[in-house]
């Protein structure tokens, strides 16, 4: 609504790619230079980043819903304020990321429409329900923890606006992660019911969180190209392993059991071995069949549709003001 100029399609000038331009671009990326919005870039680089950044933005916005589900039921005023601030941060990340995506030439409206129509994806993790208060702790601890693993390397992404957005986002996410873990510490030291709540949430969220890192390296579609362009710095499996290695001691500190009977310390590799991930479940949720896919999209569409008259009013008012100013001049 603020960037209609961006709604026009790309000019031919930007897609005219010659070998010299490509090799100059690749040399810059190889030299760890940041690519900025007005710099020449291959159309495929632009497309990949637009997809990745907007998907990230959609995830932040849809991610407000499962946590928002507990805003009105947070058990203390301190928890209520912290959760509201956290969900507000997620919205801020979404806005920030849509702005970063817009620098690549696609408007926020177009990107949001792609999400609302189901064409663009968001992180599958948000298609799981938040059933108890412990889910709010677990989302902070594991979902934000996994997001940080993914996003810290993105602070060095070759595309400047995205890299800079990630620096701020990571700072806030790291605060969210500590906040979530603190909820888990409180619950795991609480009454038997609270501890059971914490274990139940870990049981439900553990495997979906491991899936957040994406398919195994042999199956990843975008890995190679993104690595060459320094958008992606580590493989899905490397990041997943890093996450598991960091999380196992945290779960032990909470005296909670990670729901994986094959989880074992491997002296030889210096890493935790883990059981098989159910990729069929992952694909199923990705295909729209997760427990909340329909509810999440329906909630976003409802907010969008029911807010249309408000956005129209703001535009109509701005138009009237503009006409008044023109008439007075």
């Amino acid at each position: 609504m603020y960037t209609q100029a961006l709604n026009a399609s790309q000019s031919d000038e930007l897609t005219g790619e010659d070998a010299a331009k490509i090799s100059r671009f690749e040399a810059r990326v190889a030299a760890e230079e940041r690519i900025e919005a007005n710099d020449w870039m291959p159309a495929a680089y632009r497309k990949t980043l637009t997809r990745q950044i907007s998907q990230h933005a959609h995830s932040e916005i849809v991610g407000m819903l499962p946590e928002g589900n507990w805003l009105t039921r947070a058990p203390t005023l301190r928890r209520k304020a912290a959760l509201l601030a956290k969900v507000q941060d997620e919205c801020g990340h979404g806005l920030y990321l849509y702005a970063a995506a817009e620098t690549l030439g696609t408007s926020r409206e177009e990107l949001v429409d792609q999400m609302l129509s189901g064409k663009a994806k968001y992180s599958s993790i948000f298609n799981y329900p938040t059933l108890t208060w412990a889910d709010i702790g677990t989302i902070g601890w594991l979902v934000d923890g996994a997001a940080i693993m993914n996003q810290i390397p993105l602070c060095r992404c070759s595309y400047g606006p995205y890299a800079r957005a990630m620096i701020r986002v990571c700072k806030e996410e790291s605060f969210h992660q500590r906040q979530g873990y603190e909820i888990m510490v409180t619950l795991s030291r609480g009454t038997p019911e609270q501890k059971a709540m914490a274990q139940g949430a870990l049981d439900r969220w553990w495997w979906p969180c491991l899936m957040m890192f994406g398919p195994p390296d042999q199956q990843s579609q975008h890995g190679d190209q993104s690595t060459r362009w320094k958008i992606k710095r580590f493989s899905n499996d490397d990041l997943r392993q890093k996450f598991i290695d960091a999380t196992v001691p945290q779960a032990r500190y909470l005296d909670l059991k990670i729901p994986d009977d094959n989880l074992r310390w491997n002296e030889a590799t210096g890493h935790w071995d883990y059981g098989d991930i159910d990729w069929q479940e992952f694909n199923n949720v990705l295909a729209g069949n997760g427990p909340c896919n329909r509810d999440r999209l329906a909630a976003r569409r409802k907010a969008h549709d029911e807010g249309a008259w408000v956005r129209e009013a703001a535009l109509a008012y701005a138009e009237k003001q503009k006409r008044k100013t023109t008439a007075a001049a």
Partner: protein
Amino acid sequence: MATAICIQNSALFMYVLGRADDALILGHRLSEWCGHAPMMEEDMALANMGLDLIGQARELYTYAAEVEGAGNDEDKFAYLRDVQHYRNVLLVERPNGDFAQTMMRQFFYSAFADCYWRAMMSSTDPTLAAIAAKSEKESAYHLRHSSEWIIRLGDGTDESHRRAQSALNDLWPFTGELFQANPEDDALFAGRIAVDPRGLLQPWTENVTAILRSARLTLPQSQWMQKGGRSGQHSEHLGHLLSELQSLQRTYPNATW
């Protein structure tokens, strides 16, 4: 925590509690919007105003607990009081409705809070004066934000005008209670501990009518005003709000969260 608390009755304590309840209930209502607002900017703004109000409520409850001296705290006041022990005005418990209803409610409350907190900065009670200094800055922003929306909705499209006028008609009868003074508050007014809200009616009316005029909205004919919240006589809506807000504390008594 016990399953419910009884509150003792002293003029200052009840006064502070009522202001805390206003802030908490309106903050809670705003938090219900989060993720569902007409635009992302407004998701941020509504959450931000909600956070300010919940922050004000926490300071006021903490001070009320200190005044009461019965070992209660912010969470006991918020989570373990039944509907009839809440002292907020009826306006803030009105359901969110559409965006026009939410903004009109915010506008009426913020226009009051803005002049109320500014006057309370001169309270002879140093804690209330300090809370007022912070709350005044926040309320001034809430008033600016809600006024801008009232003007845009009133003077936007036919539909937005209709919705804004309808919100005005529905909520106007709940504005009178903001200016209601309880007889037991007289000593607080005399000691300049608290501000007599009756004195704020005129500046409030001037501010509000000026904005409504810019928004091309007209005041309803009926001047009948609803009241009851300050004496614990609430609408049907508050019970539902509290049953949600208090659900965990009530389901798991004595747990620490």
